[in-house]
């Protein structure tokens, strides 16, 4: 079993507190753009997510971009949304990804296409995220496709899901998390956390249900470099909870970028202490170059090695 494990999974199973980050592919076919971004992250992170047409905007494919970044020496986590591909396309791409050595996948429903630049496109949603998780689980662990067809060489994937600790109603959102775990999600990356009290409450409920023992939970951290960015997230991003006190703090500070880094580090330090949190997932949207600095200053550098 262990030879089929991804590096990320090995680190989690070895008990390390892991650090993941994110890389957004370009709008265009620029390979050097990916390679350059990737090289800056080597050594600082245990896994890097590559978004799948995030906010429903056309970008280079998650799998292809992840392939180039992997060649630079990173452990990659591809993302797969059910918005753009039906069960045929999703499974086919996952087989391709695994054959390229991309062995971690975050299964998502995806932002509705009305958020992007092609609101007139037809959405797919043939599967939902829970069904995709189950499909990947069965491909990997039972060696069968959704249609029951057996594969001689099944793919290898460490299966992840997203969770939003700030979605409401709380009970309904928790039910969805439980279904994802039940379907086979091995790790969870959460929505960006700013409201720590609410996140701590969520983790308490997670522990009550024993979810933290069935899956590895990585806390989402989104370093913001301006008050404008925070305000935008509060009003325009679905499912985000940004406390007013944080906005005030960013307003009053002299150096918003430095303050943004400090806030991120404070959040990291607090989530690290929460029982059941097994790592962080940094999402510095549009500010990817800050990742190494935050990781160093948070005392998370260097990263552990595993065999």
């Amino acid at each position: 079993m262990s030879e089929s494990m991804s590096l990320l999974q090995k680190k989690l199973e070895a008990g390390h507190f892991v650090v993941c980050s994110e890389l957004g592919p370009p709008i265009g076919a620029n390979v050097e753009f990916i390679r350059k971004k990737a090289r800056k992250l080597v050594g600082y992170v245990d896994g890097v997510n590559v978004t799948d047409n995030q906010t429903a905007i056309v970008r280079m494919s998650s799998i292809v971009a992840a392939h180039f970044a992997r060649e630079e020496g990173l452990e990659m986590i591809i993302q797969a949304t059910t918005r753009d591909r039906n069960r045929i396309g999703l499974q086919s791409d996952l087989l391709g990804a695994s054959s390229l050595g991309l062995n971690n996948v975050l299964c998502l429903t995806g932002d509705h296409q009305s958020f992007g630049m092609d609101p007139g496109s037809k959405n797919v949603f043939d599967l939902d995220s829970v069904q995709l998780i189950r499909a990947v689980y069965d491909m990997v662990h039972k060696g069968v496709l959704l249609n029951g067809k057996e594969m001689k060489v099944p793919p290898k994937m460490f299966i992840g899901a997203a969770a939003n600790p700030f979605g409401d109603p709380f009970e309904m959102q928790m039910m969805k998390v439980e279904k994802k775990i039940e379907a086979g999600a091995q790790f969870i990356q959460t929505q960006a956390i700013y409201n720590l009290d609410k996140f701590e409450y969520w983790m308490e409920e997670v522990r009550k249900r024993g979810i933290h023992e069935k899956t590895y939970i990585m806390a989402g951290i989104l370093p913001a470099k301006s008050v404008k960015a925070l305000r935008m997230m509060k009003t325009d991003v679905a499912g985000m909870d940004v406390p007013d006190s944080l906005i005030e703090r960013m307003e009053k500070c002299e150096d918003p970028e430095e303050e943004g880094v400090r806030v991120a580090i404070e959040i990291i330090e607090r989530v690290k202490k929460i029982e059941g949190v097994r790592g962080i997932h940094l999402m510095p949207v549009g500010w990817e170059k800050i990742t190494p600095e935050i990781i160093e200053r948070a005392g998370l550098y260097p990263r552990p090695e595993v065999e």
Partner: protein
Amino acid sequence: MIVGQQKKAEEIIKMLGENWESLLIVGCGTCVTVSLAGGEREVEALANLLQLYYGKKGKKVTISTDTITRQCDFEFIDDIAEKIEDHDIILSLACGVGVQHMVERHPQKLIFPGLNTSFYGATTAVGEWAERCIGCGECILDRFGGVCPVARCSKSLLNGPCGGSQDGKCEVDDEIDCGWELIFNRMKDLDILEKLLVFEDPKDWQPYRDGGPRKLVNKEYYNE
């Protein structure tokens, strides 16, 4: 019922073109009458408007009107067969089904659609209609407290909500209720929430359009 919305006059005028002298506008007395888009009242109003437009332009035209019980039954279309043949072009204010049924019955006639067929919906207020069903061909309302996740969740999710709804509203638009919150609240009230924890398999979309255009035959009544 099928809810429709009349096309804008400019679009209709452009569609009709110049190459005609007599026009028959045909309304439909069932669904689109209820949704105030293609009934007798709308037919007459549109006829007056077009009359005014072509009059001003100095184009000499004859515009007649008629509204039949249903355009999706040949029986009613045949009641006005002669009238249809007597006019150069026909503008149907029925849903897309009615327009095509007229086309099938009168293959030599140019027949134009005057409505956009919007959705299957219910009257939710005077002058307001809302979608409730997409006609997926395999009803699953029994498992969702009588609220359809396919029609009422913007992403048609079957295993619970996405993380984007806020205050009971969909991430797509504040005007849209989160379908999953409706399902959840209803099942909570009925004390059957545990049903929602059951894994929902991927839906078979063949009974929907994905099996090709659909046809239904009831052998008991079918007469070749």
